[in-house]
């Protein structure tokens, strides 16, 4: 077992242990904290696929995070009010079933990513960063100016959406759902990375011309990766909305894009469990330093600066060393 594998296990099991320790200590608040880590890590896992493996520095993943959140919010609102989402030409009702909501969130995010990706992936470098940001801002302002679902005030989910056989209002059970989804997406990421597709994606980052010379279109590979990445981040958004029982345009704002990117960079770009390490550090700092001073992000900035300047591999780079080839 390589050192990175050991650290991955420690991180994975560590996150699983936190809520149970919290429960024994009678501090249920920490369960919510751990759930936040799991959900934000999931958003990072999604971005890591595009950013880490494919080298696509998307500064617009908040769009997918927010769309996932709104999918949960809108479906739940319609289900709660018992109004159909669509009356004509066919009746589509809302839903408070998480499985349905997840599917809808994934499908819509994939569709939006397909459109955004098809346009943005024709550019590269700083233009790609700016165009993805521009698309995310477009969706952000659309959400603000659309009064039907709360506009700037956002949308409350009165009862947390359900999951067959579980009581999602119980923090531990909801945590376990989020944790299971995170682990499933990490598993999918690992399989993708080690597959032929993953190899082609990494080559598309390094040398697209050579990839084309072997008969694979770099654009198509990147687009598929971008869509999968967006779907995972969208799924995280749906869970995040359910955690807070609230969704607002702030989920779509560019700060969120930046935060998701920070999880990935702090944890280690392209490292499988990097986003989990990054999100955990982020939340811990937000909680403890945020309790001391409201300017806690100053310290976050300093740490981020140090990571970018001195340890390119992020937290996993410090602990597991440079990535060695299998």
């Amino acid at each position, binding site marked *: 077992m390589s050192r990175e594998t050991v650290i991955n296990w420690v991180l994975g099991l560590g996150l699983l242990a936190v809520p149970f320790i919290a429960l024994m200590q009678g501090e249920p608040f920490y369960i919510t904290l751990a759930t936040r880590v799991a959900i934000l890590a999931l958003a990072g896992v999604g971005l890591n696929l595009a950013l880490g493996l494919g080298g696509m520095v998307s500064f617009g993943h908040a769009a997918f995070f927010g769309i996932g959140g709104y999918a949960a919010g809108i479906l739940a609102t319609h289900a709660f009010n018992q109004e159909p989402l669509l009356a004509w030409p066919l009746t589509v009702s809302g839903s408070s079933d998480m499985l349905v909501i997840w599917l809808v969130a994934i499908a819509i995010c994939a569709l939006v990513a397909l459109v955004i990706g098809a346009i943005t992936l024709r550019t590269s470098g700083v233009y790609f960063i700016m165009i993805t940001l521009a698309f995310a801002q477009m969706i952000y302002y659309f959400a603000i100016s659309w009064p039907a679902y709360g506009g700037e005030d956002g949308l409350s989910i009165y009862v947390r959406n359900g999951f067959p056989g579980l009581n999602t209002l119980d923090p531990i059970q909801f945590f376990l759902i989020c944790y299971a989804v995170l682990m499933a997406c990490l598993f999918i990421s690992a399989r993708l990375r080690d597959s*032929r597709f993953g*190899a*082609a994606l*990494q*080559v598309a980052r*390094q*040398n697209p*011309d*050579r*990839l*084309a*010379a*072997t*008969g*694979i*279109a*770099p654009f198509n590979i990147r687009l598929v990766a971008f869509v999968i990445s967006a779907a995972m981040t969208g799924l995280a958004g749906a869970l995040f909305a359910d955690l807070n029982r609230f969704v607002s345009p702030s989920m779509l704002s560019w700060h969120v894009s930046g935060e998701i990117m920070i999880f990935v960079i702090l944890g280690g770009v392209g490292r499988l469990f990097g986003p989990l390490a990054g999100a955990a550090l982020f939340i811990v700092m937000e909680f403890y330093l945020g309790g001391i001073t409201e300017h806690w992000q100053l310290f976050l900035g300093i740490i981020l600066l140090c990571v970018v300047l001195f340890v390119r591999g992020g937290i996993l780079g410090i602990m597991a060393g440079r990535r060695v*080839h*299998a």
Partner: protein
Amino acid sequence: MLLQIEGLQSFYGRSQALFGVNLAMEEGEVVALMGRNGMGKTTTIRSLCRIMPYRHGTVRFLSHDLGVMRPHRVARLGIGLVPEGRRCFPNLSVHENLVVAARPGDWSLERVGRLFPRLRERHSQSASTLSGGEQQMLAIGRALMTNPKLLILDEATEGLAPVIRQEIWAAVRELKGEGQSILIVDKTLKELMQLADRCTILERGMSVWDGTPADLGEDIQDRFLGV
């Protein structure tokens, strides 16, 4: 006709590099593309693979016009390029380098491993840790994994130790024996003359001579190839 290039003209920005290259090859042939440094051999190859666009002339491969195609389409038609300077994918393992390029056909991992046993020994090693000769073998193996109808070798023995060169030449001879069509650029005339069915010489971006190795006398060698 496998490949037919007529009146090919290419430009690097505003400076013209090819002024009219003609080349034709039949299936199963080994054609040597020759000329001194800077005469347009690699540019011809880059143009025909559509890695760089060309402005005038036609390139036909199995009666498809390549002029309108994007590079990956050209590769899928069956042109396997072993580029100058090898250009393996450094952060992938040997195995991944081969598998990523694979297309259905006779060439499999196993068959590449038989052609280059060294690759089989090093299959899980990162390509960046291979020696130059092994990287060259990997580049050839990667091109073969696409099951090309035409294999293009651009300076495949450049900068390699004599022993390794012989290994590469032996592999190329084996491929020729199996009926593989090969377009080859190389500096070592001796091996090239033994292997090629026909030669085309480029001078200042133009085709100036075409014929069999037997016809390539001392005078022509001096005129177009001598330094």
